[in-house]
Protein backbone atom coordinates (compact mmCIF):
# COMPACT_ATOMS: atom_id res chain seq x y z
CA UNK A 1 0.00 0.00 0.00
CA UNK A 2 2.83 2.41 0.79
CA UNK A 3 4.94 3.42 -2.19
CA UNK A 4 7.73 4.39 0.12
CA UNK A 5 9.29 2.84 3.15
CA UNK A 6 8.72 4.89 6.27
CA UNK A 7 9.97 2.34 8.75
CA UNK A 8 11.80 3.58 11.77
CA UNK A 9 14.88 1.88 13.19
CA UNK A 10 13.01 0.27 16.07
CA UNK A 11 10.07 -0.88 13.97
CA UNK A 12 11.23 -4.40 13.32
CA UNK A 13 11.50 -5.09 17.02
CA UNK A 14 8.16 -3.36 17.60
CA UNK A 15 6.43 -5.51 15.01
CA UNK A 16 7.71 -8.84 16.28
CA UNK A 17 7.27 -7.86 19.91
CA UNK A 18 3.67 -6.80 19.45
CA UNK A 19 2.83 -9.90 17.50
CA UNK A 20 4.35 -12.31 20.00
CA UNK A 21 1.46 -12.52 22.49
CA UNK A 22 -1.07 -13.02 19.71
CA UNK A 23 1.12 -15.58 18.00
CA UNK A 24 1.71 -17.34 21.29
CA UNK A 25 -1.99 -17.70 22.02
CA UNK A 26 -2.97 -18.80 18.57
CA UNK A 27 -0.13 -21.26 18.17
CA UNK A 28 -0.39 -22.83 21.61
CA UNK A 29 -4.16 -22.98 21.87
CA UNK A 30 -5.28 -23.48 18.30
CA UNK A 31 -2.50 -24.65 16.01
CA UNK A 32 -0.81 -27.15 18.31
CA UNK A 33 -4.10 -28.84 19.30
CA UNK A 34 -5.04 -29.16 15.63
CA UNK A 35 -1.79 -30.90 14.84
CA UNK A 36 -2.15 -33.11 17.92
CA UNK A 37 -5.61 -34.14 16.75
CA UNK A 38 -4.32 -35.20 13.36
CA UNK A 39 -1.52 -37.18 15.00
CA UNK A 40 -3.94 -38.69 17.51
CA UNK A 41 -6.14 -39.96 14.73
CA UNK A 42 -3.40 -42.42 13.88
CA UNK A 43 -2.93 -43.57 17.47
CA UNK A 44 -4.85 -45.32 20.17
CA UNK A 45 -5.31 -42.60 22.76
CA UNK A 46 -7.38 -42.37 25.91
CA UNK A 47 -8.93 -39.21 27.31
CA UNK A 48 -6.46 -36.98 29.13
CA UNK A 49 -3.47 -38.34 27.25
CA UNK A 50 -2.02 -36.62 24.24
CA UNK A 51 -0.35 -39.58 22.69
CA UNK A 52 -0.50 -43.33 22.41
CA UNK A 53 0.68 -46.33 20.42
CA UNK A 54 0.60 -45.98 16.66
CA UNK A 55 -2.24 -47.87 14.99
CA UNK A 56 -2.09 -46.71 11.41
CA UNK A 57 -5.46 -46.24 9.75
CA UNK A 58 -7.33 -48.40 12.28
CA UNK A 59 -9.32 -45.51 13.69
CA UNK A 60 -10.44 -44.46 10.24
CA UNK A 61 -11.39 -47.96 9.21
CA UNK A 62 -13.28 -48.35 12.44
CA UNK A 63 -15.11 -45.10 11.87
CA UNK A 64 -16.09 -45.96 8.32
CA UNK A 65 -17.33 -49.40 9.37
CA UNK A 66 -19.46 -47.94 12.13
CA UNK A 67 -23.13 -47.45 11.35
CA UNK A 68 -23.33 -44.60 13.87
CA UNK A 69 -20.79 -42.76 11.78
CA UNK A 70 -22.91 -42.93 8.67
CA UNK A 71 -25.98 -41.99 10.64
CA UNK A 72 -24.10 -38.97 11.96
CA UNK A 73 -22.92 -38.18 8.46
CA UNK A 74 -26.44 -38.31 7.10
CA UNK A 75 -27.79 -36.28 10.00
CA UNK A 76 -25.09 -33.67 9.47
CA UNK A 77 -26.01 -33.24 5.84
CA UNK A 78 -29.72 -33.08 6.61
CA UNK A 79 -29.11 -30.55 9.37
CA UNK A 80 -26.72 -28.37 7.37
CA UNK A 81 -28.50 -28.28 4.06
CA UNK A 82 -31.94 -28.28 5.58
CA UNK A 83 -31.35 -25.34 7.88
CA UNK A 84 -29.19 -23.37 5.43
CA UNK A 85 -31.75 -23.79 2.64
CA UNK A 86 -34.57 -22.56 4.86
CA UNK A 87 -32.47 -19.75 6.25
CA UNK A 88 -31.43 -18.49 2.83
CA UNK A 89 -34.90 -18.66 1.30
CA UNK A 90 -36.71 -17.21 4.28
CA UNK A 91 -33.93 -14.69 4.82
CA UNK A 92 -34.24 -13.50 1.24
CA UNK A 93 -38.00 -13.20 1.52
CA UNK A 94 -37.89 -11.35 4.81
CA UNK A 95 -35.13 -9.06 3.58
CA UNK A 96 -37.17 -8.14 0.51
CA UNK A 97 -40.13 -7.53 2.74
CA UNK A 98 -38.18 -5.32 5.13
CA UNK A 99 -36.63 -3.44 2.23
CA UNK A 100 -39.94 -1.86 1.32
CA UNK A 101 -40.78 1.21 3.27
CA UNK A 102 -43.82 0.91 5.49
CA UNK A 103 -44.98 2.26 8.78
CA UNK A 104 -43.37 0.51 11.71
CA UNK A 105 -40.52 -0.84 9.62
CA UNK A 106 -37.95 0.12 12.24
CA UNK A 107 -39.73 -1.82 14.95
CA UNK A 108 -40.33 -4.76 12.64
CA UNK A 109 -36.64 -4.90 11.85
CA UNK A 110 -35.68 -4.93 15.53
CA UNK A 111 -38.10 -7.74 16.35
CA UNK A 112 -37.05 -9.83 13.38
CA UNK A 113 -33.41 -9.36 14.36
CA UNK A 114 -33.90 -10.44 17.96
CA UNK A 115 -33.52 -14.24 17.68
CA UNK A 116 -29.98 -13.80 16.41
CA UNK A 117 -29.04 -11.41 19.20
CA UNK A 118 -30.48 -13.68 21.86
CA UNK A 119 -28.04 -15.83 23.80
CA UNK A 120 -28.19 -19.32 22.30
CA UNK A 121 -29.14 -20.94 25.57
CA UNK A 122 -32.19 -18.70 25.84
CA UNK A 123 -33.38 -19.61 22.38
CA UNK A 124 -32.94 -23.30 23.09
CA UNK A 125 -34.66 -23.05 26.44
CA UNK A 126 -37.70 -21.26 25.14
CA UNK A 127 -38.22 -23.61 22.21
CA UNK A 128 -37.75 -26.68 24.35
CA UNK A 129 -40.46 -25.43 26.61
CA UNK A 130 -42.74 -24.61 23.68
CA UNK A 131 -42.16 -27.96 22.02
CA UNK A 132 -42.66 -29.97 25.19
CA UNK A 133 -45.23 -32.57 24.16
CA UNK A 134 -47.25 -32.28 27.35
CA UNK A 135 -47.13 -28.69 28.51
CA UNK A 136 -45.82 -26.98 25.40
CA UNK A 137 -47.82 -24.26 23.74
CA UNK A 138 -47.20 -25.57 20.22
CA UNK A 139 -49.03 -28.82 20.76
CA UNK A 140 -51.72 -27.00 22.72
CA UNK A 141 -52.41 -24.59 19.88
CA UNK A 142 -52.32 -27.29 17.22
CA UNK A 143 -54.69 -29.50 19.22
CA UNK A 144 -57.06 -26.67 20.02
CA UNK A 145 -57.33 -25.54 16.42
CA UNK A 146 -57.86 -29.12 15.39
CA UNK A 147 -54.86 -29.30 13.10
CA UNK A 148 -53.71 -32.46 14.86
CA UNK A 149 -55.66 -34.95 16.94
CA UNK A 150 -52.83 -36.32 19.05
CA UNK A 151 -49.85 -34.47 20.48
CA UNK A 152 -46.74 -34.61 18.34
CA UNK A 153 -43.65 -35.74 20.17
CA UNK A 154 -41.40 -33.14 18.49
CA UNK A 155 -38.04 -33.53 20.21
CA UNK A 156 -38.85 -36.87 21.79
CA UNK A 157 -39.44 -38.86 18.65
CA UNK A 158 -36.73 -39.96 16.24
CA UNK A 159 -39.00 -39.10 13.33
CA UNK A 160 -39.64 -35.48 14.19
CA UNK A 161 -36.56 -34.56 16.24
CA UNK A 162 -34.36 -33.47 13.34
CA UNK A 163 -37.13 -31.42 11.79
CA UNK A 164 -37.69 -29.67 15.10
CA UNK A 165 -33.99 -28.97 15.51
CA UNK A 166 -33.84 -27.49 12.00
CA UNK A 167 -36.82 -25.30 12.85
CA UNK A 168 -35.15 -23.90 15.96
CA UNK A 169 -31.89 -23.37 14.10
CA UNK A 170 -33.70 -21.57 11.29
CA UNK A 171 -35.49 -19.29 13.78
CA UNK A 172 -32.22 -18.40 15.41
CA UNK A 173 -30.03 -17.80 12.38
CA UNK A 174 -32.29 -16.46 9.63
CA UNK A 175 -31.84 -12.89 10.93
CA UNK A 176 -28.16 -13.17 10.03
CA UNK A 177 -29.12 -13.78 6.40
CA UNK A 178 -31.68 -10.98 6.58
CA UNK A 179 -29.06 -8.47 7.72
CA UNK A 180 -26.60 -9.51 5.06
CA UNK A 181 -29.12 -9.34 2.22
CA UNK A 182 -30.76 -6.14 3.45
CA UNK A 183 -27.34 -4.53 3.39
CA UNK A 184 -26.73 -5.34 -0.24
CA UNK A 185 -30.34 -4.59 -1.25
CA UNK A 186 -29.92 -1.07 -0.03
CA UNK A 187 -27.00 -0.54 -2.36
CA UNK A 188 -28.99 -1.19 -5.55
CA UNK A 189 -29.64 2.14 -7.24
CA UNK A 190 -33.32 2.95 -7.35
CA UNK A 191 -33.02 4.36 -10.88
CA UNK A 192 -32.63 0.87 -12.28
CA UNK A 193 -36.04 -0.11 -10.98
CA UNK A 194 -37.62 3.09 -12.14
CA UNK A 195 -36.18 2.69 -15.61
CA UNK A 196 -37.38 -0.90 -15.72
CA UNK A 197 -40.89 0.08 -14.66
CA UNK A 198 -41.02 2.70 -17.39
CA UNK A 199 -39.91 0.07 -19.88
CA UNK A 200 -42.80 -2.09 -18.73
CA UNK A 201 -40.94 -4.79 -16.81
CA UNK A 202 -43.04 -6.79 -14.35
CA UNK A 203 -42.15 -7.15 -10.65
CA UNK A 204 -40.90 -10.64 -11.25
CA UNK A 205 -38.75 -9.58 -14.19
CA UNK A 206 -37.31 -6.76 -12.13
CA UNK A 207 -36.47 -9.15 -9.36
CA UNK A 208 -34.89 -11.68 -11.68
CA UNK A 209 -32.91 -9.26 -13.83
CA UNK A 210 -31.97 -6.46 -11.41
CA UNK A 211 -32.20 -7.63 -7.81
CA UNK A 212 -30.92 -11.16 -8.07
CA UNK A 213 -27.68 -10.54 -10.01
CA UNK A 214 -26.89 -7.66 -7.71
CA UNK A 215 -27.23 -9.65 -4.52
CA UNK A 216 -25.82 -12.92 -5.82
CA UNK A 217 -22.22 -12.54 -4.50
CA UNK A 218 -23.40 -11.60 -1.02
CA UNK A 219 -26.08 -14.28 -1.16
CA UNK A 220 -23.55 -16.98 -1.99
CA UNK A 221 -21.05 -15.73 0.57
CA UNK A 222 -23.73 -15.74 3.26
CA UNK A 223 -24.75 -19.25 2.25
CA UNK A 224 -21.12 -20.34 2.50
CA UNK A 225 -20.68 -18.82 5.93
CA UNK A 226 -23.93 -20.32 7.19
CA UNK A 227 -22.92 -23.72 5.82
CA UNK A 228 -19.50 -23.65 7.46
CA UNK A 229 -20.94 -22.60 10.77
CA UNK A 230 -23.80 -25.08 10.59
CA UNK A 231 -21.33 -27.90 9.97
CA UNK A 232 -19.50 -27.07 13.17
CA UNK A 233 -22.59 -26.36 15.29
CA UNK A 234 -22.56 -28.22 18.55
CA UNK A 235 -24.50 -26.40 21.23
CA UNK A 236 -27.92 -26.00 19.65
CA UNK A 237 -28.40 -29.63 18.78
CA UNK A 238 -26.69 -31.02 21.85
CA UNK A 239 -28.67 -28.98 24.35
CA UNK A 240 -31.94 -29.55 22.50
CA UNK A 241 -31.68 -33.29 22.19
CA UNK A 242 -28.30 -34.54 23.38
CA UNK A 243 -27.96 -36.19 20.00
CA UNK A 244 -31.02 -38.36 20.44
CA UNK A 245 -33.51 -39.75 20.53
CA UNK A 246 -31.75 -42.89 19.38
CA UNK A 247 -29.04 -40.88 17.61
CA UNK A 248 -31.63 -39.27 15.36
CA UNK A 249 -30.00 -35.88 15.72
CA UNK A 250 -26.40 -36.89 16.30
CA UNK A 251 -24.30 -34.90 13.90
CA UNK A 252 -20.56 -35.26 13.36
CA UNK A 253 -19.55 -32.67 15.99
CA UNK A 254 -21.75 -34.40 18.54
CA UNK A 255 -20.35 -37.78 17.55
CA UNK A 256 -16.83 -36.47 18.11
CA UNK A 257 -17.78 -35.17 21.53
CA UNK A 258 -19.45 -38.45 22.51
CA UNK A 259 -16.56 -40.59 21.32
CA UNK A 260 -14.02 -38.49 23.22
CA UNK A 261 -15.83 -37.64 26.42
CA UNK A 262 -18.26 -40.50 26.85
CA UNK A 263 -16.44 -43.40 25.22
CA UNK A 264 -13.08 -41.95 26.26
CA UNK A 265 -11.71 -42.93 22.87
CA UNK A 266 -9.71 -39.95 21.70
CA UNK A 267 -8.09 -41.76 18.79
CA UNK A 268 -11.41 -42.58 17.13
CA UNK A 269 -12.84 -39.18 17.96
CA UNK A 270 -9.81 -37.59 16.33
CA UNK A 271 -10.32 -39.67 13.19
CA UNK A 272 -13.91 -38.47 12.86
CA UNK A 273 -12.74 -34.91 13.54
CA UNK A 274 -10.19 -35.11 10.72
CA UNK A 275 -12.85 -36.46 8.36
CA UNK A 276 -15.07 -33.53 9.33
CA UNK A 277 -12.19 -31.16 8.70
CA UNK A 278 -11.57 -32.59 5.22
CA UNK A 279 -15.24 -32.27 4.34
CA UNK A 280 -15.19 -28.66 5.48
CA UNK A 281 -12.15 -27.91 3.35
CA UNK A 282 -13.77 -29.42 0.27
CA UNK A 283 -16.90 -27.42 0.99
CA UNK A 284 -15.03 -24.16 1.42
CA UNK A 285 -13.02 -24.85 -1.71
CA UNK A 286 -16.02 -25.50 -3.93
CA UNK A 287 -17.95 -22.52 -2.58
CA UNK A 288 -14.94 -20.26 -3.13
CA UNK A 289 -14.81 -21.42 -6.75
CA UNK A 290 -18.51 -20.76 -7.15
CA UNK A 291 -18.21 -17.27 -5.73
CA UNK A 292 -15.26 -16.44 -7.93
CA UNK A 293 -17.18 -17.58 -10.98
CA UNK A 294 -20.21 -15.54 -10.08
CA UNK A 295 -18.03 -12.48 -9.57
CA UNK A 296 -16.42 -12.94 -12.96
CA UNK A 297 -19.81 -13.08 -14.60
CA UNK A 298 -20.91 -9.97 -12.76
CA UNK A 299 -17.98 -7.98 -14.06
Amino acid at each position, binding site marked *: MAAYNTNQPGDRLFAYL*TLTPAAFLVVLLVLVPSIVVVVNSFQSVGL*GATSGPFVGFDNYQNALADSTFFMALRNTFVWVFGSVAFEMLLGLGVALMLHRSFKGRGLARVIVLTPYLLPTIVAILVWRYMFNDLVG*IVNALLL*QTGIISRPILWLNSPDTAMMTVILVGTWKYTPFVVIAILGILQSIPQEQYEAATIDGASQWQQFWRITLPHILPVFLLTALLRTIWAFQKFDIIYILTGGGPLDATTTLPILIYLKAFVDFDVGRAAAVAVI*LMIMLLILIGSYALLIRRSEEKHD
Partner: protein
Amino acid sequence: MTDATTFAHPAGSRVRDADWLYTTTKRAMFYILVLTVVGLVGFPLLWMLISSFKTAAELYQSPPTFLPSQATIENYTELYWQSNFGFYLLNSIIVATATTVLALGIGSIAAYSLSRFDFAGLNAFAGLTLVCYMLPEVLIVIPLYSIVIWLGLADTLYALILTNTAMAMPLVLWFMRAYFRSVPRALEECAIIDGCTRFMAFRKVTLPLAVPGLVSVGMLCFNMAYNEYLFALIFTSTDTKKVLSVGLATWINQENIYSWGMLLAGAVQLTLFAMALYWIVQRSIAAGRLQGSLQGE
Protein backbone atom coordinates in the same frame (compact mmCIF):
# COMPACT_ATOMS: atom_id res chain seq x y z
CA MET B 1 -46.43 5.15 -8.40
CA THR B 2 -49.92 6.20 -9.32
CA ASP B 3 -48.66 8.42 -12.14
CA ALA B 4 -48.28 5.54 -14.50
CA THR B 5 -51.82 4.42 -13.81
CA THR B 6 -53.78 7.65 -14.11
CA PHE B 7 -53.92 7.71 -17.89
CA ALA B 8 -56.70 8.97 -20.07
CA HIS B 9 -59.26 6.25 -20.49
CA PRO B 10 -62.87 6.24 -21.69
CA ALA B 11 -63.99 4.74 -18.37
CA GLY B 12 -62.18 7.54 -16.50
CA SER B 13 -62.68 7.48 -12.77
CA ARG B 14 -63.95 3.88 -12.76
CA VAL B 15 -60.49 2.73 -13.76
CA ARG B 16 -58.89 4.85 -11.05
CA ASP B 17 -61.18 3.31 -8.42
CA ALA B 18 -60.33 -0.19 -9.56
CA ASP B 19 -56.64 0.62 -9.32
CA TRP B 20 -57.12 2.08 -5.88
CA LEU B 21 -58.82 -1.08 -4.73
CA TYR B 22 -56.03 -3.16 -6.22
CA THR B 23 -53.22 -1.21 -4.59
CA THR B 24 -54.98 -1.02 -1.25
CA THR B 25 -55.60 -4.75 -1.24
CA LYS B 26 -51.97 -5.35 -2.09
CA ARG B 27 -50.95 -3.03 0.71
CA ALA B 28 -53.24 -4.75 3.17
CA MET B 29 -51.89 -8.14 2.21
CA PHE B 30 -48.38 -6.85 2.63
CA TYR B 31 -49.14 -5.61 6.13
CA ILE B 32 -50.71 -8.96 6.98
CA LEU B 33 -47.54 -10.63 5.78
CA VAL B 34 -45.39 -8.35 7.89
CA LEU B 35 -47.54 -8.96 10.95
CA THR B 36 -47.42 -12.72 10.39
CA VAL B 37 -43.66 -12.79 10.09
CA VAL B 38 -43.10 -10.48 13.04
CA GLY B 39 -45.64 -12.45 15.05
CA LEU B 40 -44.07 -15.81 14.29
CA VAL B 41 -40.60 -14.53 15.09
CA GLY B 42 -41.60 -12.62 18.19
CA PHE B 43 -44.12 -15.03 19.69
CA PRO B 44 -41.58 -17.25 21.48
CA LEU B 45 -40.18 -14.19 23.23
CA LEU B 46 -43.58 -12.98 24.26
CA TRP B 47 -44.49 -16.45 25.46
CA MET B 48 -41.27 -16.63 27.46
CA LEU B 49 -42.08 -13.36 29.18
CA ILE B 50 -45.67 -14.29 30.00
CA SER B 51 -44.77 -17.75 31.23
CA SER B 52 -42.07 -16.48 33.56
CA PHE B 53 -44.78 -14.94 35.71
CA LYS B 54 -46.75 -18.12 36.17
CA THR B 55 -46.65 -20.32 39.22
CA ALA B 56 -44.98 -23.69 38.99
CA ALA B 57 -48.32 -25.46 39.22
CA GLU B 58 -49.74 -23.49 36.34
CA LEU B 59 -46.68 -24.03 34.18
CA TYR B 60 -47.09 -27.76 34.34
CA GLN B 61 -50.76 -27.65 33.48
CA SER B 62 -51.77 -29.55 30.43
CA PRO B 63 -53.26 -28.00 28.34
CA PRO B 64 -51.35 -24.80 29.14
CA THR B 65 -53.09 -21.54 29.88
CA PHE B 66 -52.30 -18.39 27.98
CA LEU B 67 -52.26 -15.59 30.50
CA PRO B 68 -51.25 -16.36 34.08
CA SER B 69 -54.27 -16.80 36.30
CA GLN B 70 -52.15 -15.86 39.29
CA ALA B 71 -49.23 -13.68 38.31
CA THR B 72 -46.24 -14.14 40.55
CA ILE B 73 -42.61 -13.15 40.74
CA GLU B 74 -41.60 -16.18 42.74
CA ASN B 75 -39.61 -17.52 39.80
CA TYR B 76 -37.39 -14.49 39.82
CA THR B 77 -36.76 -14.54 43.54
CA GLU B 78 -36.25 -18.29 43.71
CA LEU B 79 -33.76 -17.94 40.90
CA TYR B 80 -31.36 -16.05 43.06
CA TRP B 81 -32.12 -17.56 46.46
CA GLN B 82 -32.35 -21.21 45.58
CA SER B 83 -29.94 -21.70 42.76
CA ASN B 84 -26.55 -20.73 41.50
CA PHE B 85 -27.95 -18.47 38.80
CA GLY B 86 -26.18 -15.51 40.33
CA PHE B 87 -22.87 -17.35 40.01
CA TYR B 88 -23.60 -18.31 36.44
CA LEU B 89 -24.38 -14.73 35.52
CA LEU B 90 -21.28 -13.40 37.24
CA ASN B 91 -19.05 -16.02 35.63
CA SER B 92 -20.43 -15.32 32.18
CA ILE B 93 -19.85 -11.60 32.58
CA ILE B 94 -16.32 -12.17 33.88
CA VAL B 95 -15.37 -14.52 31.06
CA ALA B 96 -16.92 -12.37 28.35
CA THR B 97 -15.43 -9.12 29.62
CA ALA B 98 -11.97 -10.54 30.25
CA THR B 99 -11.94 -12.21 26.84
CA THR B 100 -12.93 -8.99 25.12
CA VAL B 101 -10.37 -6.88 26.98
CA LEU B 102 -7.59 -9.39 26.41
CA ALA B 103 -8.45 -10.02 22.77
CA LEU B 104 -8.68 -6.33 21.99
CA GLY B 105 -5.55 -5.49 23.98
CA ILE B 106 -3.34 -8.12 22.42
CA GLY B 107 -5.05 -8.09 19.06
CA SER B 108 -5.25 -4.38 18.35
CA ILE B 109 -1.57 -3.64 18.63
CA ALA B 110 -0.72 -6.83 16.78
CA ALA B 111 -3.17 -5.85 14.04
CA TYR B 112 -1.54 -2.45 13.91
CA SER B 113 1.82 -4.02 13.20
CA LEU B 114 0.23 -6.26 10.58
CA SER B 115 -1.31 -3.24 8.89
CA ARG B 116 1.80 -1.09 8.78
CA PHE B 117 4.73 -3.44 8.33
CA ASP B 118 5.85 -5.97 5.83
CA PHE B 119 8.59 -7.88 7.62
CA ALA B 120 9.23 -11.56 7.10
CA GLY B 121 6.52 -13.87 8.34
CA LEU B 122 3.90 -11.23 9.09
CA ASN B 123 1.60 -11.96 6.17
CA ALA B 124 2.15 -15.67 6.59
CA PHE B 125 1.06 -15.38 10.19
CA ALA B 126 -2.05 -13.48 9.16
CA GLY B 127 -2.92 -16.25 6.72
CA LEU B 128 -2.30 -18.85 9.39
CA THR B 129 -4.74 -17.19 11.76
CA LEU B 130 -7.38 -17.24 9.05
CA VAL B 131 -6.96 -20.99 8.70
CA CYS B 132 -7.17 -21.33 12.48
CA TYR B 133 -10.41 -19.39 12.50
CA MET B 134 -11.96 -21.92 10.15
CA LEU B 135 -11.10 -24.82 12.45
CA PRO B 136 -14.10 -26.13 14.34
CA GLU B 137 -14.06 -26.06 18.13
CA VAL B 138 -14.86 -29.76 18.27
CA LEU B 139 -11.63 -30.44 16.48
CA ILE B 140 -9.32 -28.78 18.96
CA VAL B 141 -11.24 -29.21 22.18
CA ILE B 142 -9.90 -32.69 22.90
CA PRO B 143 -6.18 -31.84 23.07
CA LEU B 144 -7.07 -28.48 24.61
CA TYR B 145 -8.60 -30.39 27.45
CA SER B 146 -5.26 -32.07 28.08
CA ILE B 147 -3.37 -28.78 27.71
CA VAL B 148 -5.68 -27.08 30.19
CA ILE B 149 -5.10 -29.83 32.73
CA TRP B 150 -1.36 -29.69 32.12
CA LEU B 151 -1.39 -25.93 32.76
CA GLY B 152 -3.19 -26.57 36.02
CA LEU B 153 -6.21 -24.58 34.86
CA ALA B 154 -8.83 -27.28 35.01
CA ASP B 155 -12.16 -26.08 36.41
CA THR B 156 -11.14 -22.41 36.37
CA LEU B 157 -12.45 -19.42 34.50
CA TYR B 158 -8.90 -18.69 33.32
CA ALA B 159 -9.08 -21.67 31.01
CA LEU B 160 -12.20 -20.26 29.41
CA ILE B 161 -10.79 -16.76 29.13
CA LEU B 162 -7.59 -17.93 27.45
CA THR B 163 -9.23 -20.33 25.03
CA ASN B 164 -11.94 -17.87 24.05
CA THR B 165 -9.33 -15.18 23.48
CA ALA B 166 -7.34 -17.49 21.26
CA MET B 167 -10.45 -18.34 19.24
CA ALA B 168 -11.38 -14.68 18.89
CA MET B 169 -7.88 -13.53 18.00
CA PRO B 170 -8.09 -14.13 14.22
CA LEU B 171 -11.29 -12.11 14.07
CA VAL B 172 -9.72 -9.19 15.93
CA LEU B 173 -6.53 -9.36 13.89
CA TRP B 174 -8.20 -9.33 10.49
CA PHE B 175 -10.89 -6.84 11.35
CA MET B 176 -8.58 -4.34 13.00
CA ARG B 177 -5.89 -4.77 10.36
CA ALA B 178 -8.39 -3.71 7.73
CA TYR B 179 -9.56 -0.90 9.96
CA PHE B 180 -6.07 0.42 10.67
CA ARG B 181 -5.30 0.38 6.96
CA SER B 182 -8.04 2.90 6.50
CA VAL B 183 -6.35 5.26 8.94
CA PRO B 184 -3.78 7.33 7.01
CA ARG B 185 -0.18 6.64 7.92
CA ALA B 186 0.71 10.29 7.60
CA LEU B 187 -0.87 11.04 10.94
CA GLU B 188 1.41 8.83 12.96
CA GLU B 189 4.39 9.66 10.74
CA CYS B 190 3.91 13.27 11.80
CA ALA B 191 3.90 12.26 15.42
CA ILE B 192 7.06 10.26 14.94
CA ILE B 193 8.77 13.15 13.19
CA ASP B 194 7.76 15.26 16.15
CA GLY B 195 9.67 12.88 18.39
CA CYS B 196 7.20 10.18 19.42
CA THR B 197 8.23 6.57 19.52
CA ARG B 198 6.28 4.17 17.34
CA PHE B 199 4.37 2.97 20.37
CA MET B 200 3.49 6.48 21.53
CA ALA B 201 2.33 7.36 18.04
CA PHE B 202 0.13 4.27 18.03
CA ARG B 203 -1.34 4.98 21.42
CA LYS B 204 -1.90 8.69 21.03
CA VAL B 205 -2.71 9.07 17.35
CA THR B 206 -3.88 5.88 15.65
CA LEU B 207 -5.65 4.08 18.46
CA PRO B 208 -8.14 6.86 19.33
CA LEU B 209 -9.14 7.00 15.68
CA ALA B 210 -9.80 3.27 15.67
CA VAL B 211 -12.25 3.26 18.56
CA PRO B 212 -15.41 2.59 16.47
CA GLY B 213 -13.73 -0.46 14.97
CA LEU B 214 -12.65 -1.62 18.40
CA VAL B 215 -16.19 -1.26 19.68
CA SER B 216 -17.59 -3.32 16.80
CA VAL B 217 -15.09 -6.14 17.15
CA GLY B 218 -15.36 -5.91 20.91
CA MET B 219 -19.08 -6.51 20.62
CA LEU B 220 -18.47 -9.57 18.47
CA CYS B 221 -15.88 -10.93 20.90
CA PHE B 222 -18.15 -10.38 23.87
CA ASN B 223 -21.00 -12.11 22.09
CA MET B 224 -18.83 -15.07 21.11
CA ALA B 225 -17.46 -15.55 24.61
CA TYR B 226 -20.86 -15.03 26.25
CA ASN B 227 -22.54 -17.66 24.09
CA GLU B 228 -19.71 -20.13 24.07
CA TYR B 229 -20.77 -23.59 25.21
CA LEU B 230 -18.42 -26.40 24.28
CA PHE B 231 -15.28 -25.18 26.03
CA ALA B 232 -17.29 -24.10 29.05
CA LEU B 233 -18.92 -27.52 29.21
CA ILE B 234 -15.64 -29.37 29.18
CA PHE B 235 -13.34 -27.11 31.15
CA THR B 236 -15.55 -26.41 34.17
CA SER B 237 -17.17 -28.95 36.47
CA THR B 238 -17.98 -27.29 39.80
CA ASP B 239 -21.44 -25.78 39.67
CA THR B 240 -20.39 -22.39 41.02
CA LYS B 241 -17.76 -22.08 38.32
CA LYS B 242 -20.13 -22.63 35.44
CA VAL B 243 -21.19 -19.97 33.02
CA LEU B 244 -24.77 -19.31 31.98
CA SER B 245 -24.75 -21.42 28.86
CA VAL B 246 -23.66 -24.53 30.71
CA GLY B 247 -25.50 -23.92 33.97
CA LEU B 248 -28.87 -23.40 32.36
CA ALA B 249 -28.33 -26.28 29.97
CA THR B 250 -27.82 -28.62 32.92
CA TRP B 251 -31.08 -27.40 34.42
CA ILE B 252 -33.03 -28.18 31.30
CA ASN B 253 -32.15 -31.80 31.67
CA GLN B 254 -33.00 -31.87 35.35
CA GLU B 255 -36.60 -30.84 35.11
CA ASN B 256 -37.58 -32.48 38.34
CA ILE B 257 -35.26 -30.27 40.38
CA TYR B 258 -35.49 -26.98 38.56
CA SER B 259 -38.80 -25.69 37.36
CA TRP B 260 -39.49 -24.28 33.95
CA GLY B 261 -40.49 -21.13 35.78
CA MET B 262 -37.02 -20.44 37.05
CA LEU B 263 -35.52 -21.28 33.69
CA LEU B 264 -37.85 -18.87 31.96
CA ALA B 265 -37.19 -16.15 34.52
CA GLY B 266 -33.48 -16.61 33.90
CA ALA B 267 -34.07 -16.50 30.17
CA VAL B 268 -36.00 -13.24 30.42
CA GLN B 269 -33.22 -11.62 32.39
CA LEU B 270 -30.58 -12.77 29.95
CA THR B 271 -32.63 -11.38 27.10
CA LEU B 272 -33.01 -8.03 28.79
CA PHE B 273 -29.33 -7.97 29.60
CA ALA B 274 -28.35 -8.77 26.01
CA MET B 275 -30.77 -6.19 24.64
CA ALA B 276 -29.52 -3.54 27.04
CA LEU B 277 -25.96 -4.23 26.00
CA TYR B 278 -26.74 -3.90 22.30
CA TRP B 279 -28.70 -0.76 22.90
CA ILE B 280 -25.82 0.82 24.84
CA VAL B 281 -23.33 -0.11 22.15
CA GLN B 282 -25.62 1.19 19.40
CA ARG B 283 -25.96 4.45 21.27
CA SER B 284 -22.22 4.83 21.78
CA ILE B 285 -21.51 4.11 18.13
CA ALA B 286 -24.09 6.66 17.07
CA ALA B 287 -22.74 9.18 19.56
CA GLY B 288 -19.22 8.50 18.36
CA ARG B 289 -20.23 9.18 14.77
CA LEU B 290 -21.89 12.41 15.79
CA GLN B 291 -18.81 13.51 17.67
CA GLY B 292 -16.67 12.77 14.67
CA SER B 293 -18.83 14.89 12.42
CA LEU B 294 -18.80 17.75 14.88
CA GLN B 295 -15.03 17.74 14.84
CA GLY B 296 -15.25 18.29 11.15
CA GLU B 297 -13.62 15.07 10.01
